[in-house]
């Protein structure tokens, strides 16, 4: 059984962004637990760089997605499941935009501009504003956890298809066609 795959560029972007979003989310959670220290400063910076990269990559991904479309869902997919799949995917894309944006503005409002890789200064669009910083940081955190919950739902759906439905749907995101094993993404 050969399942039509997403275009290779989109597959690469998917897994790259999955790894990056996982690392960035973990850093974000860790940073809020750490005391002020050089390790915390490093983590905060990496977290911001990760967010900036994801924000940039999602535009690329949207372009690729619009240009190449998505492979069709299995014929037996119900209307509700179809709608749910599309809705979750759309909101995931929105999260890739909204979460970094909220974090970026929270950083600016805190009085810390973002300098990508410590080298490229990004635009300072708003000035320091402690009250706003607190609100934006809260928005960023709520959105990030919502994003995390949605990713879990996304992964749970993939697992359901893999092990309950056994329809090999995950092959759509495989790096190479693997008719023998639907898990062959490595």
């Amino acid at each position: 059984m050969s399942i039509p795959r997403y275009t290779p560029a989109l597959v690469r972007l998917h897994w790259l962004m999955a790894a990056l979003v996982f690392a960035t989310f973990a850093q974000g959670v860790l940073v809020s637990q750490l005391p002020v220290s050089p390790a915390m400063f490093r983590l905060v910076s990496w977290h911001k760089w990760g967010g900036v990269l994801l924000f940039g990559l999602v535009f690329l991904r949207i372009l690729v997605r619009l240009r190449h479309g998505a492979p069709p869902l299995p014929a037996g997919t119900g209307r509700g499941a179809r709608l749910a799949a599309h809705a979750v995917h759309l909101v995931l894309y929105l999260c890739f935009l909204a979460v970094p944006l909220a974090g970026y503005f929270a950083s600016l409002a805190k009085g810390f501009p973002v300098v990508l890789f410590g080298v490229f200064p990004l635009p300072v669009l708003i000035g320091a504003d402690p009250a706003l910083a607190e609100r934006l940081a809260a928005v960023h955190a709520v959105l990030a956890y919502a994003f995390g919950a949605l990713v879990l739902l996304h992964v749970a759906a993939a697992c359901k298809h893999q092990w309950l439905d056994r329809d090999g749907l995950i092959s759509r995101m495989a790096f190479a066609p693997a008719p023998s094993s639907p898990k062959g993404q490595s």
Partner: protein
Amino acid sequence: MIKPCAGLLALVLALPVNAAGVDLAKSSLNFSFRQMGVPVAGSFGRFDADVAFNAAEPAKSRATLTVHTASIRLPAPDAVAEAAKAAWFDVARHPQARFVASRFTRLADGRYQVFGRLTLKGISRDISAPFALREAGGTRWLEGALPISRLAFGVGDGQWRDTDTVADTVELKFRLALSGR
């Protein structure tokens, strides 16, 4: 009568270059440094200054600046709390930093240079800074900047000696409003 008048006039003309003090409300002591490549701005909210600047004869000037280290301002509240700790300014043991000028000279470009000794966290070192005298809105301003090595004064000790996260160089900017004529 003419001669004493001329003498008085000369004295009056000479006076504006002598400042009686510093208008601390208008003056500022700002600094900036890099943290993971990110420029971070801060300032000291409280300092005392005793400055008598003689532009005509810079050598006759004097200046003493006392900075209350607890008055540090940084963008984040947790950074302010951190700065007070023993590894940084050790505010409990060293509540004040002091600069005492020892020499003033005039520079070729019309600016001036001050030499003196900065005592910070119990460590004294010679420092020097160029500055300009500027008149604006009826106030005379002394404006200058100098890079300071934080590590030379033990500011940011222990784990903070790592300059990859917090750079060693701190750009200090002073802007003193001279009051009185």
